[in-house]
């Protein structure tokens, strides 16, 4: 299995794409209070649950609770794959008491993480996925405690993917700077704008294969116009059923396609002898596989697309114009 994975967050009608997010990566997600985060959080947790990862969602009590009463989240909680941790969010003004209180919160998270590290080995989960929404409970003066916790996580040498989220209004410039130092990717989201940043490359020219923000509409149009290529690329990587192709496209592009779009396409690719179909081992799914000839056609198609896009990128970068 590849050590890298595709990962995306969505919100405010925009999709944040991270290609090649490696395990051990930590993402810092800074948001203002108007940003809807539930969909992004659900996507992140679903991604982990589907990959047999042990997941933790820690959140300010009663403020960022997701819908756990149904579907995969409920089942995952019941079977112990998804753990929840309420973080108390009392506003304590007295300095000493507040420090003690925050320290207790961080200790609880650390205890829970240690418990989960042990579970990974004992119950054979592939890795750990952590989503901690600190909300606005942590203020700038307490950020050192978070940084210590993050460092301890890294020292464990247990593979993990983590998203740490903070409400931006609770932090000052220096705290944000400190947090950025220990995260590999940063997402900053306000009601009107979502940006991604890579520490060390802030002022660099646009880089390929890093990350980007794209509107839902653009992505939907892309999927619609490139559907055949996307389906062939998926099947070239791994034969599967129409049902699972729909799920993968939804996971990767946040675009919901109906069966009426995918199955006719699969039928016509089969008629063109690009795909073969046979009954799957579950005795209910029809699994589509590229034929030998189809495999060559797909390779050529994908190679042509990559070349065309590279050509376009070099034009955008000015390479062609410079000549």
């Amino acid at each position: 299995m590849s050590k890298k994975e595709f990962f995306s967050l969505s919100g405010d009608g925009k999709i944040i794409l991270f290609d090649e997010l490696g395990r051990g990566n930590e993402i810092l997600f800074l948001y203002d209070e108007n940003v809807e985060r539930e969909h992004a959080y659900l996507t992140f947790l679903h991604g982990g649950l589907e990959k047999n990862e042990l997941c933790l969602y820690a959140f300010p009590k009663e403020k960022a609770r997701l819908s756990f009463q149904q579907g995969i989240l409920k089942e995952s909680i019941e079977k112990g794959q998804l753990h929840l941790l309420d973080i108390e969010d009392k506003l304590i003004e007295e300095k000493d008491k507040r420090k003690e209180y925050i320290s207790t919160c961080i200790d609880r998270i650390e205890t829970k993480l240690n418990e989960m590290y042990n579970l990974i080995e004992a119950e054979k989960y592939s890795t750990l996925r952590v989503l901690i929404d600190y909300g606005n409970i942590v203020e700038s003066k307490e950020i050192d405690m978070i940084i210590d916790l993050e460092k301890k996580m890294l020292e464990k040498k247990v593979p993990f993917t983590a998203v740490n989220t903070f409400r931006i209004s609770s932090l000052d410039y220096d705290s944000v700077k400190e947090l950025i130092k220990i995260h590999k990717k940063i997402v900053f989201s306000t009601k009107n704008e979502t940006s991604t940043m890579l520490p060390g490359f802030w002022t660099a020219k646009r880089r390929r294969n890093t990350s980007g923000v794209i509107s839902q509409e653009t992505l939907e149009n892309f999927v619609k116009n490139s559907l055949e290529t996307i389906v062939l690329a998926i099947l070239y990587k791994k034969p599967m059923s129409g049902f699972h192709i729909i799920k993968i496209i939804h996971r990767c592009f946040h675009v919901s396609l109906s069966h009426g779009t995918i199955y006719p396409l699969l039928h016509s690719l089969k008629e063109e002898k690009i795909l073969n179909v046979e009954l799957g081992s579950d005795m209910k799914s029809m699994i589509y596989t590229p034929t030998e000839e189809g495999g060559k056609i797909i390779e050529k198609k994908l190679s042509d697309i990559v070349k065309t896009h590279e050509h376009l990128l070099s034009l955008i970068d000015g390479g062609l114009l410079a000549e």
Partner: protein
Amino acid sequence: MQIKEGGKIMFRNTIMGLGNVIHTEIPKGSTILVTGRPGTLKSSLAYTLLSKYLASKNEFGLYITLEETKASHERNMKSLGINIYPELKIFDYQVIRREYKGEKGEELDIIKGIEDAIKFYKEKEKKFTCIAVDSLNAVYSLIDLTNLREKMYNFFDTFKRYQLTSIVILETEILGNRMTYGGERFLADGIINLGTMKGKEDVTIYMQVEKMRATKHSRKKYQIGIDSNGLSILGHEYE
């Protein structure tokens, strides 16, 4: 008056003797309901009408089978002497229904699925002109039945928006005493009822055109014959 072929669907020549029942051609874009109890040749009639028309005009059509596999449907047609024409593509929903079955949180939106499939083939096939849905009962079994009349209006309207002549099969026995579920009899442009009559030695199957908008037709019951050449319409049963 001479009929302009462009605006009419030429069904009369598809089955021998059908011209005695339907006297003038049916307007293109019509939605025709074919109703009857099990075993009254609903699928066979719908398939024959569409496939023979499409083959004669070199046009493309979609036959959506929701309860029967493609293989089973083709086997049944062949057993009745009905040819299989590539111009009428059989779209088998069995596989899709099976794959979605038991998947939590994954509902099969059949009406949207059919519309998307129509969209797909409209873009792919320039001469996509006809569609059959076998059966409406299966559609009902897969959707929430609240506001059904509105849903059926939109469902039938989809065919019109895409300028498709459509045949929708409705199993009447399942409905029991109720004649209609979602107002489909009112919404359809034409209704062909199929049924059985007890003869002296056997049971005969008849067809009766209950309504067919903008078309001259008989309302009598006509016996349907089956031989090695498929279906044919014999004389009418009753004066």
